[in-house]
């Protein structure tokens, strides 16, 4: 957002006050004359004109801030699209607004969670069969050893080692199974974070709708105040506004449009002259 577009609330209020005083000063003689001549209608018109001229600054600023906010949101999308590597450019180009970006996060986390659970589904039966096999083999092994009448010391040691190993394998595979269950449970983050993201998507939609309403209100106020502004606008904005003031969408026909998407919002804003 260019620095020149920024205008703080205080500056704006100061500017409005200055404009009001300046307009009052300019029309002082005329106003006095009207009042002294008891021409109340003209005096009233004049006061209204002075009042409106100061408000115009506020309307312009509302419009300008709205435009700046909207540009910032649009630039956010463009920046990410331009910075994207070629591999993901196609994917990113489909994500034209913040909502689709957030939906993208939901999809990505969902895919990751599903891939993780695919692996859990593969690994869990393996752990189970290792456990079952080692327990079964341990029974057989014990039966075999106890049936042997002659066991020397070396065999005795081997018997204990194999027996301990089979027990350890059974225990370890049970541990692996329990870890896999934990990994499975942790994938619940996708649901919980997804719910939060969905709320943010609703918020973004609400903000966008409000933004469009604000632009409409600002444009209506401008229409009431009149675009022939006495307000000194900064040069680059003045240029912009003069061009936009002739824009087609200030016509009543285009106002009938129902705003339904980002493109409509862009079009609406552009043609409204902010």
């Amino acid at each position, binding site marked *: 957002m260019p620095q020149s577009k920024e205008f703080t609330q205080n500056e704006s209020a100061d500017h409005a006050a200055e404009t009001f005083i300046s307009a009052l000063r300019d029309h002082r003689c005329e106003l006095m004359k009207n009042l002294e001549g008891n021409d109340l209608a003209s005096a009233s018109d004049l006061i209204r004109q002075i009042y409106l001229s100061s408000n115009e600054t506020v309307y312009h600023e509302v419009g300008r801030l709205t435009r700046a906010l909207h540009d910032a949101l649009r630039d956010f999308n463009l920046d990410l699209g331009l910075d994207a590597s070629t591999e993901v450019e196609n994917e990113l180009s489909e994500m034209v607004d913040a909502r689709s970006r957030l939906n993208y996060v939901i999809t990505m986390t*969902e895919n990751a*969670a*599903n891939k993780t*659970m695919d692996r*859990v*589904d593969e690994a869990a039966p393996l752990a189970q069969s290792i456990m079952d096999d080692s327990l079964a083999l341990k029974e057989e092994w014990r039966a075999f050893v106890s049936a042997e009448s002659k066991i020397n010391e070396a065999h005795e040691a081997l018997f204990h080692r194999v027996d301990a190993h089979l027990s350890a394998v059974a225990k370890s595979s049970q541990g692996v199974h329990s870890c896999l*269950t*934990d990994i*499975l*449970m942790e*994938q*619940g*983050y*996708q*649901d*919980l974070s*997804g*719910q939060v993201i969905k709320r943010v998507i609703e918020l973004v939609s609400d903000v966008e709708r409000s933004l469009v309403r604000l632009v409409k209100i600002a444009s209506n106020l401008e229409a009431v105040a009149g675009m022939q502004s006495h307000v000194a606008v900064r040069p680059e904005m003045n240029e912009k506004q003069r061009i936009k003031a002739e824009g087609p969408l200030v016509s009543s026909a285009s106002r009938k449009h129902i705003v339904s998407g980002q493109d409509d919002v862009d079009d609406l804003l552009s043609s409204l002259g902010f």
Partner: protein
Amino acid sequence: MKILIVDDFSTMRRIIKNLLRDLGFTNTSEADDGTTALPLLEKGNFDFLITDWNMPGMTGLELLVACRASTKLKTLPVLMVTAEAKRDQIIAAAQAGVSGYVVKPFTAAALQDKITKIFERIEATN
């Protein structure tokens, strides 16, 4: 034992399905909200319903109320598995006739415990 799992997030449906399989329940079906779940419940012979609360279309609480209002489903055991953790909400679910309430994130043991308790209660009343 035929179980219906209702959640708008497929990830969560899959987690619950896997846990149920570990517990020995393999006859499960899925639905993504109350609107799709209710006709399944009315048509099929489900013995148990596990549902989320916050879903688009028909919420889990609305589904629960609809079940309790139905002649066929009024005694169906319903376990709510949800991130809605406010006291008022849990009270509302209880008043609507929920059989159990598990708050997300939950552990495998917590789900198992609730399911076991629900089945024990059913057996005690039969």
